[in-house]
C-alpha cells in the first residue's frame, strides 16, 4: 500500500470511528455548537436576576442637604421612581442613545447636547436621603477629620522621592478615625459620604474656598462604580464654583469652558464592536482548536493502545509514519471542524437573539454584524491558524502516545492548555499588535496576525505571511519529530520499555543519556530559578547580582541533573575535548562572525520594526556595570558579563538541552529548539532574533565537534567584544543601516555555514 493510500485509508477508518464515538462527538460538535446558546441563555437569566437586585445599588450621601453639590449628586443618581419599576436600562439602548447624542452634538450646540443628555450616563447609584439625627451623627464623626489640604505639587514630588515618607503608614489616631467612620457608613449602608466645608480666606471673604471630604468604603463591592460616578460630579461641581466666582467678578462664566468637544464615532457600530472583540476571538479559536485536537488524539493513540488495537495495527504492512500522518489528518480535521462550528454557533446565536430582540436588540444586532466576517478575513483566519492547528494536533498525538494510559494522557491536558493559553493571552493585552519579531514567536505570531486581521481595515498580509511561515517551520519540526513516534517500541509497549515521564523511574540506574523531555524539565527548573533568584542576590552587591543567578540557577541544575541521573558528562553535557585541535581555531574564527551576525540582525531589525523602547531597568543595569568597572575595571566586567554567561548558559543550553533534544528530535530539531529556548531565556523580544541565530550557530558547532567547549569560547568571545566596545568606546554607534545590517547578518551566516560544513569533510 503506498503512502497516500495508507494515509487516506487510516483517515477514512479513524474518521468513521470518531463519528461513532459519543464522547468525541460531544467535545468536537456538541460543545462548540451548544456553548454560545447555553451561555446566552445563562446571561439572559443572570440579567433577569440582577434586574431585581437594583435595591442593592451603592448609596452615596451628601451631608449638606440642599447644597449645590447635593443637587448635582441627586441629579446623577437613579431617580427614586425608577426603583423596581423600570430597572436597569439595557446597555445597548444606552450605547445607542450615546451614539445618537454624540452625532447630534456635531451639528447642534454644546448646550443642546447637554440638554438632550440622559439623566445618568455613568455607573448607577442611589442618593441616600438621611434622617436629621443620622446626619448629625455622621457630621459629628466627620468633624474629627482635619480639613483637606490644598494640593502642593512640589511637596508631592518630594514625598515620592522620600522612601521613608512613602512607606510610613497612617497613625493610630488616623486609623481609629477611619474605623469609626467606616462603621457608621456601613451601619447606614453608605458606599460614599461627602461633607462640604468652607475655609474662610483671611483677607478676602470672597476668596473663601470649599474643601470636600469624600469618604469611600474601598471594600464595597461597587467601589469602582462609586469612584467612576463621583469623578464627573466633582468635576462639574468645581466648574460650577469657578463659574460662580467669575460671575461675581462680572466675568463671563464661559471662561472656564474654553473647549467644546464633540466626539463623533464614524465607524459603524458593528465595526467598532468587532474591533473590541478582536482580542477575544483568536483566544476562543485557539481554545477550540486545542480541545478539538486533544480529545480525538487521545482516542486515536492512547485509546487505541488501551483497547488493544494498536498492536494489530502496527503488525500490518503499512508504513508506520503514514499511519501516523493518517491519524494526524483526522485530528486536524476534527480541530478545524470544532473551530468552524464554534464560529458558526457564535454568529447564529447572535443573529437569532438579535432578530428576536429579546436580548438587548440593537446591541446584539451590532454584535452579530461585528462578528459576520468577510470571506477574505475568514480565509485569513484559516490560513493563519492552520499551521498552529497542525502543531497542536501533532503535539496532542505525541502527548497522548507518550502517556502509558488514557487516564495518564488526560492528566497532560492541563499543562498543555497552560502552555498554549499563556502566550495566547497576549491578544487580550490592549493595544497588542504584531511586529516582525512577535510574528516569529509560536502561538503569539499567528494570533496577533489574526487579531490585526479583525481590527485593521486592510488585511495584514506581511504579518500573516511571516507568522504562517514561522508557524509552518515549527509545525514541520514538530510533525517530523512526532511522526517517528510510532517507530518507537516505547510508544507501543509503554509497560515494557517505559516512555515519557516513566523514564524518570529509571533514574540513577545508569541509562546512557537523558531524553529531550528530561532536558526540558531541567531547563524549566533553570528558568524558574533564574526568574525568582535574581532578587535574592541583590543585597550581595553588583558582582553577585550578575554572576550568582548564572551559577546557581543556570549552571547548577545541569550539574545536579548529571549527578542525580548518574550520567556521563560527555553524553549528557557534551563536556569533553573537541574532536580535533582545529576546532578551536574555527571557534576563534566564529567569534567575529558571531558579533557580525548579532549586530547585523539587530540593525536590520531596528530598521524594520523600529528601535527597542527604553528599558525600565536601564538605570539599574548601568549602575551595576559602573560598580563592576569601579571594582575591577574591564577585566572584571569581562569575567562577569562574558566568562560567566559563556560557561553557565552554554552548559545549560548547548550542554543539557541540546544533548537531550538531539536524542529526541534529531540534530536539526535539537539545534533549532535549543536555540529557540536559549533566545527565550534572555526574555527580550528585541534580542530574540539575533540570539536565535547565534544559538543555531553555536548549536551546530557543538553537533559538529561533539563538544560544548568551543561553543563556550564563541559565547565568551562574542560577549567580551561587545562589553569591551561598550566600555572602551561608549560613544561608538553599534548600529548600521538596513543594507549593511543585512550584509553583515547574511555574510556572517554564510561564513558560519561554510565553516561548519567544512568540518563534515573526511579526515578533518
Amino acid at each position, binding site marked *: 500500500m503506498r503512502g497516500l493510500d495508507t494515509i487516506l485509508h487510516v483517515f477514512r477508518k479513524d474518521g*468513521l*470511528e470518531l463519528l461513532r*464515538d459519543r464522547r468525541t462527538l460531544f467535545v468536537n460538535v456538541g460543545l462548540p455548537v451548544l456553548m454560545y446558546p447555553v451561555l446566552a441563555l445563562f446571561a439572559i437569566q443572570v440579567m433577569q436576576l440582577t434586574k431585581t437586585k437594583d435595591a442593592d445599588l451603592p448609596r452615596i450621601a451628601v451631608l449638606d442637604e440642599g447644597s449645590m453639590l447635593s443637587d448635582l449628586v441627586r441629579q446623577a443618581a437613579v431617580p427614586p421612581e425608577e426603583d423596581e419599576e423600570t430597572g436597569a436600562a439595557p446597555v445597548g439602548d444606552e450605547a445607542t442613545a450615546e451614539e445618537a447624542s454624540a452625532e447630534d452634538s456635531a451639528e447642534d450646540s454644546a448646550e443642546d447636547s447637554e440638554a438632550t443628555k440622559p439623566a445618568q450616563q455613568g455607573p448607577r447609584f442611589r442618593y441616600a436621603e438621611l434622617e436629621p439625627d443620622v446626619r448629625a451623627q455622621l457630621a459629628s464623626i466627620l468633624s474629627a477629620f482635619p480639613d483637606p489640604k490644598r494640593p502642593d505639587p512640589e511637596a508631592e514630588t518630594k514625598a515620592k522621592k522620600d522612601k521613608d515618607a512613602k512607606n510610613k503608614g497612617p497613625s493610630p489616631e488616623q486609623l481609629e478615625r477611619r474605623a469609626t467612620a467606616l462603621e457608621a457608613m456601613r451601619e447606614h449602608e453608605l458606599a460614599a459620604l461627602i461633607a462640604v466645608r468652607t475655609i474662610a480666606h483671611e483677607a478676602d471673604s470672597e476668596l473663601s474656598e470649599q474643601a470636600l471630604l469624600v469618604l469611600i468604603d474601598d471594600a464595597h463591592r461597587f467601589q469602582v462604580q462609586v469612584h467612576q460616578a463621583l469623578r464627573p460630579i466633582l468635576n462639574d461641581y468645581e466648574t460650577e464654583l469657578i463659574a460662580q466666582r467669575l460671575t461675581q467678578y462680572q466675568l463671563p462664566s464661559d471662561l472656564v469652558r474654553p473647549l467644546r468637544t464633540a466626539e463623533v464615532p464614524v465607524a459603524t457600530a458593528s465595526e467598532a464592536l468587532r474591533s473590541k472583540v478582536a482580542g477575544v476571538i483568536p483566544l476562543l479559536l485557539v481554545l477550540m482548536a486545542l480541545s478539538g485536537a486533544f480529545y480525538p488524539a487521545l482516542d486515536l493513540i492512547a485509546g487505541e493502545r488501551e*483497547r488493544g488495537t494498536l498492536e*494489530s495495527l502496527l503488525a500490518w504492512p*503499512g508504513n508506520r509514519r503514514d499511519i501516523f500522518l493518517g491519524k494526524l489528518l483526522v485530528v486536524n480535521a476534527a480541530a478545524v471542524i470544532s473551530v468552524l462550528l464554534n464560529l458558526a454557533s457564535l454568529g447564529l446565536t447572535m443573529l437569532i437573539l438579535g432578530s428576536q430582540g429579546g436580548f438587548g436588540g440593537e446591541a446584539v444586532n451590532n454584535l452579530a454584524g461585528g462578528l459576520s466576517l468577510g470571506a477574505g478575513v475568514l480565509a485569513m483566519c484559516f490560513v493563519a491558524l492552520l499551521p498552529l492547528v497542525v502543531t497542536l494536533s501533532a503535539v496532542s498525538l505525541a502527548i497522548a502516545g507518550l502517556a502509558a494510559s488514557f487516564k495518564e494522557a488526560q492528566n497532560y491536558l492541563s499543562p498543555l492548555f497552560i502552555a498554549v493559553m499563556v502566550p495566547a493571552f497576549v491578544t487580550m493585552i490592549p493595544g497588542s499588535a504584531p511586529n516582525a519579531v512577535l510574528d516569529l514567536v509560536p502561538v503569539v505570531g499567528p494570533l496577533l496576525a489574526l487579531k490585526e486581521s479583525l481590527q485593521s481595515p486592510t488585511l495584514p498580509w506581511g504579518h500573516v505571511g511571516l507568522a504562517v511561515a514561522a508557524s509552518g517551520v515549527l509545525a514541520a519540526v514538530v510533525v517530523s519529530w512526532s511522526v517517528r513516534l510510532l517507530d518507537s517500541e516505547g510508544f507501543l509497549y509503554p509497560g515494557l520499555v517505559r516512555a515519557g515521564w516513566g523514564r524518570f523511574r529509571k533514574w540513577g540506574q545508569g541509562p546512557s543519556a537523558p531524553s529531550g523531555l528530561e532536558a526540558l524539565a531541567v531547563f524549566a527548573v533553570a528558568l524558574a530559578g533564574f526568574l525568582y533568584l535574581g532578587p535574592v542576590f541583590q543585597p550581595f552587591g553588583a558582582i553577585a547580582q550578575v554572576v550568582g543567578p548564572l551559577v546557581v540557577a543556570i549552571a547548577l541544575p545541569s550539574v545536579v541533573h548529571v549527578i542525580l541521573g548518574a550520567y556521563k558528562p560527555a553524553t549528557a553535557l557534551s563536556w569533553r575535548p573537541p574532536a580535533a585541535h582545529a576546532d578551536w581555531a574555527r571557534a576563534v574564527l566564529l567569534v567575529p562572525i558571531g558579533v557580525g551576525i548579532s549586530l547585523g540582525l539587530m540593525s536590520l531589525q531596528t530598521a524594520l520594526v523600529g528601535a527597542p523602547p527604553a528599558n525600565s531597568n536601564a538605570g539599574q543595569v548601568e549602575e551595576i556595570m559602573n560598580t563592576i568597572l569601579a571594582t575591577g575595571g574591564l577585566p572584571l566586567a569581562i569575567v562577569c558579563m562574558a566568562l560567566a554567561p559563556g560557561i553557565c548558559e552554554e552548559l545549560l543550553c548547548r550542554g543539557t538541552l541540546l544533548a537531550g533534544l538531539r536524542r529526541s528530535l534529531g540534530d536539526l530539531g535539537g539545534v533549532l529548539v535549543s536555540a529557540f529556548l536559549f533566545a527565550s531565556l534572555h526574555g527580550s523580544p528585541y534580542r530574540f532574533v539575533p540570539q536565535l541565530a547565534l544559538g543555531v550557530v553555536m548549536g551546530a558547532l557543538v553537533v559538529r565537534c561533539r563538544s560544548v567547549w568551543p561553543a563556550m569560547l564563541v559565547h565568551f568571545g562574542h560577549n567580551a567584544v561587545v562589553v569591551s566596545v561598550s566600555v572602551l568606546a561608549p560613544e561608538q554607534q553599534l548600529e548600521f543601516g538596513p543594507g549593511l545590517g543585512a550584509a553583515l547578518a547574511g555574510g556572517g551566516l554564510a561564513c558560519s555555514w561554510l565553516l561548519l560544513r567544512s568540518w563534515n569533510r573526511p579526515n578533518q
Partner: protein
Amino acid sequence: MLTCETLRKSFYDPGRGEVRAVDGINLHLDAGVVALVGANGAGKSTLLRLIATLLMPDSGSVVLDGIDTRSNPAGVRQRLGYLSTTTRLYPRLTGREMLAYAGGFYGLRDAALAERIEHVSTSFGIADFIDQRCDALSTGQGQRVNLARTMLADPPVLILDEPTTGLDLVAAKMVVDAVQAARRADRLIIIATHVMAEVEAMADRLILIDKGQIDFDGAPSELGAGLALAAAIHQRIGGTGTLGTTAEAAS
C-alpha cells in the same frame, strides 16, 4: 523460511532491573506448525514480537524469506498474520469493516477484498454476525473475527501468541480446528501456548524457551505424550509441586 541469528533483546523492568528476554537465540523454521512453550516471562512473546517487527532486536537478526526485519519491516509484515492475547478488534467497527480495514493494508481492494471476506467469513463461521459492531460480539465470536482478520490476506506465516487464552472449551476447539485448517505445505504457523493438548494436536515441532534461550527443539513426541509431555516440560523449566513429582515418576 524464517531464520533468527544470535537474536538478543533486553528491556528494563522496574521489579527485576535489566531483563534479557531473548538471549542469543539461533533458529531456523520451515513450513509446518511450530509450538513455542515456556513459563510466563520466558521470552516467547518477545521472540514472536521480534519476528512480527513490533520490536527490533538489540543485536542479531530475523530474516523471513530473505527479507531482514531491520531493513524492510513492512515487507516482512506483508508476509505475516499476527494474533496475540492483547490484540483486539475495533469496538466501533463492524466485523466486515474491521476485515476491510485490515485487508486494505495488505493491498486487498474491491472484488478481491469482498472475495476474501466472503471466504474467511465462511471458513470461520462468522457470516451471521459479520455486520454487527465488534463491541456487541461475545468473546468467542470476537476471537473468530480476530482469526479471520489474521488469515484474511492468506499470509505465508502465521504467528499466534496464546490464541486460546480466555476462551471457553468450544471457542478454543474452534481455534484449534482453524489452525489445523490453515495448515498448508508452504505455510509456517508459530503458536505460543501453555496447553499441551494443543501442542500434541497441532505441532510438528516443539521449541521450549527458558530464560530467553532455547532449552529444547524437536518433535513433541521426543519428550513424551499426554501427561508425560507436560511433566517433562515442567521438569525442564525447573517446576516443582505435583506436576514435578509426576515428572519424576514419568521419567
